[in-house]
């Protein structure tokens, strides 16, 4: 049914640039990035370390603002919104899986998962969190603190947390980089599974060619630019 309509544009970036101040002056870490991502699409951003992937993701998610250019998320101009307005959009539409998990150490697994829902004022948070916890296979770890969980377990909690608000868009920054191959594989499966179930737009950063290949589209970055813009790359 979705195919019958024109795909709705979910993320749009126009001539994005990011400059940072360093001791020697100003350094441009993103140059002239433009892209559009449609609803329900899965997109991989690949590239060498330091090429600017995380930076781009943070701009698309509205964690940071570009030095130049425009970003639209579900039609909202992130570049001209305040930090708090951007937070509101994240709360409503965005899920995030970070490179280094970023769980709150003083909250248990289940509390970490419910946190975004509670911030959004959701009363049913706990029920859904339990379901998600089961989905990621951690139902018996609900009351563990992050320090008591292994890296893979922490990342699964982080994924459950990302999905609790049923976000329209999920950003994942190297979700399996810190994990062994098998666990990494399970995490990735989980992401795509949830993407399929909830129709979530998935934007993920990865060094892993296999993972990138599972996405509908790949964007390759080098020194702050797209190499083959808007061209799906096929890696064998």
């Amino acid at each position, binding site marked *: 049914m979705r195919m019958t309509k024109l795909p709705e544009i979910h993320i749009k970036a126009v001539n994005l640039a990011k400059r940072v101040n360093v001791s020697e002056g100003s350094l441009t870490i993103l140059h002239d990035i433009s892209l559009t991502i449609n609803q329900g699409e899965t997109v991989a951003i690949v590239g060498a370390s330091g090429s600017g992937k995380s930076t781009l993701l943070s701009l698309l998610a509205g964690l940071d603002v570009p030095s130049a250019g425009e970003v639209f998320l579900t039609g909202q101009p992130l570049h001209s919104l305040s930090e*708090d307005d951007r937070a509101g959009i994240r709360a409503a539409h*965005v899920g995030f899986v*970070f490179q280094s998990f*970023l769980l709150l150490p003083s909250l248990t697994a289940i509390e970490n998962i419910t946190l975004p829902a509670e911030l*959004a004022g959701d009363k049913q948070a706990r029920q859904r969190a339990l379901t998600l916890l089961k989905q990621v296979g951690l139902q018996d770890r609900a009351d563990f603190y992050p320090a008591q969980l292994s890296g893979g377990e922490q990342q699964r909690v982080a994924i459950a947390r990302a999905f609790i608000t049923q976000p329209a868009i999920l950003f994942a920054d190297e979700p399996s980089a810190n994990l062994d191959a098998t666990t990494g594989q399970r995490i990735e499966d989980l992401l795509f599974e949830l993407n399929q179930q909830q129709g979530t737009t998935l934007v993920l950063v990865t060094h892993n060619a296999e993972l990138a290949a599972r996405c509908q589209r790949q964007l390759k970055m080098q020194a702050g630019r797209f190499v083959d813009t808007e061209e799906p790359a096929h890696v064998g």
Partner: protein
Amino acid sequence: MWASIAWRLFWRELKRGELWVIAFALFLAVFSVVSLSGITQTVRVALEQRSAQFIAADRVLGSSQPFNPEIIRLAQQQTLQVAQQMQFDSMLFSAQQMQLATIKAVDTAYPLRGELVLHQSDNVLSGELGSLTPGQIWVEPRLLGLLEVSIGDDIELGSSRLQVAGVIVNEPDAPLSVFGGSPRVIMHIADVAATGIVQPGSRISYRYLFAGGNAELDRFATEVTPLMSVHERWRNRDRQTAVGGALERAERFLLLAGLLGIVLAACAAAVAASRYSQRHAQAVAIIKALGATTAQVRRIYSSHLMLVVLFSLGLGLLLGQVTLLGVESAIVLYVGDFRPEFSLRPIWLGSLTCILCALLFAARPLWQLTITPAIQVLKQPVQQLAFDRWQFITGAVAVFGLMWLFSGEWLISIGLFLVCGVFVGALLGIAALMVKAAKPVAAGQSSAGKLALANLRRRLWANSFQLITFSLALFLALLLYFVRAELIGQWQQQIPEGAPNHFLVNVSEAQRSQLADFAKAHQLQSEPFYPVVRGRLVQVNQEQMRDEATKEDRTEQRTGVGRELNLTWLSTLPTANKILSGNWFSTESRGEVSVEQELAERLGLKLDDQVQFSIGGQMVSAKISSIRQVDWNSLQPNFYMILSPDLLKDFPASYITAFYIEPDRYQLVNQLARLMPTVTVLSVEAIIKQVQDIIAQVTVALSFILLIIILASALVLVAQVQATLEQREQELAILRTLGARYAFLRNALILEFTFLGALAGLFATVLAEVLLLTLQQRLFELPFSFHYALWWMGPLSGALLVSALGWWQLRRLLQVPGAVLIRRVLQG
């Protein structure tokens, strides 16, 4: 929803320590303010109530005009108790003798405070209690001898005859003058009219006595002011003002000393709060990345601060009040007649202090925390322990605000603030120099000492603030310890154990040997006899004295200077006297006089002026060779004029002497009175006891403050060590991985803290010595002497305290197995 998140985070955070440090710091602030201001308040109320007994009322209005019914009506309107009293000197006549006496006529309401004790006998120690009735007269025991009358006889006063009903045992508001005066008599005010003594122009002093609640008294005082003429004035409890003033100064001193403890505690709170904020920066970034707005984050973290404030405030107020109740019941036990007055001042002062500390020391770091941007999630958390500028400014504002709040004086606040600023500046400078001077440790050699020094150097660089707070904490503790010892020593010196508590006045030449025998027989320590000759100052530099200058009413209350002065001659300067200018008599001094400074000022007398006295009709001339300052609180016979011995030797003199009589031997006083009826015995026991009570109470308060300062100092140490906990954890993990042994790490740790403590102790010692020497000269007027004990106590206590606290804080870290430590560090 944010509330449940806030609550969960708060609850988990309690385990981490920083919140406890903030809570304890705030608690300490509230508790110390409530109890200190409460205690001084209570002591003052107790003192006021006791001094009220000395004027037989809460307030006394004196007048030279007959009673104004309007004033009494106003007082009754305010539901005050009122008593009326008249006092005049008059001759009493018995069948055989006549005698000038001071007559006090009172109504039955008298006294409103304290107790009037009358005995229907000629004996102050036994006899049935009597009460005042018209037609009767009660007399001082020596008057019975002077008039040669016994109980039941009539005596004449003016044109009435009154019956001697008994003796006065205790008259609460009798003047305390070591020179005595005429014998005292009490009669009913209803009998005054019949005596015919009240004539236009007769010297009668009228007094209104009032008692009641403070609010009513104050309201009455403002209402009555427009009615008062030049003849009416409030009579101060002048005998108490010296003690009262001392207590007021004591309160200010205590609060300011306590304030330094509070500032220390607040610094600890600030350190803990900024540490807390830094640790939470990542969490805030995560929460924001997950979609929380700044306002939500602010609610979460301000609720943490609020919970801590509420907890500390509640507990501080509660324990403060409990302490206060304890003190009050102790005073009741000790003093007996004491009505505690509830006051809101300690409560609002404590609450205000707590809120001010929380807002200005802890709120800033938390505010900083909440503006952490979401993008921070992608960055490494930055470790920085230095105070930011705003924190420094708000902290300084808070300290100044508190100083002003406690002292109520701009000058003191500014002065103290500047002194503190200079100290911090000096410490900063020294710390910077020390760090610069420290040599880098040679690489490749590993000993615990080397590691300790290396750690220290690195941390000193990173944060000399730590050294400053340690030094300041130790400095305050040391300073207070020594000031306390010095204060107590000085007070106790003022009223040593066994200081004379009974003065004998009006002793004749013949009675001297009799008294000496009496003292010997009863093993009383006898004090020197001061000769007294009454004389009148008639000329200064050939100029006739204006009569008015030495008029009794000007000076009577304080010292008993009469129209005649009490003159004495002495060859040695009495202890409570200090020469301000000129020189004390030498053995060759002839025809010289030493004048008390206030009197000299009032009469315009200068050094080398020639003054002339008229003594028993003879003229005696003397040159002023010195001006003296007299400590009127010294409970010693004090004199305005002391003449060189050659001048007065040949005049008939009476003598003043004093005894210390133990409380269980007071019947000796009665024996003495019977043996020598013309001698007046004055007890200063009540005043001595009062001063001793105050000393005891202030001593307790000082010790209390010392305790608070030590606690606050320890708190600063704990907060500072906690602040470096994570950094140390990382270092330890690395060192453990590299194969360092437990004993090695432990020794290095202890050495590091010992050295740091000793260094801070040394700074503290130098500062404390400088300040103590200044205080010694300025405040205590003691000779210059170093505090040798300080020089070993300072560094030693610093080393011990800091190393013990550091060890206590970090020992768990050392005991964590290396693997666990590494895992913890790596996983953040």
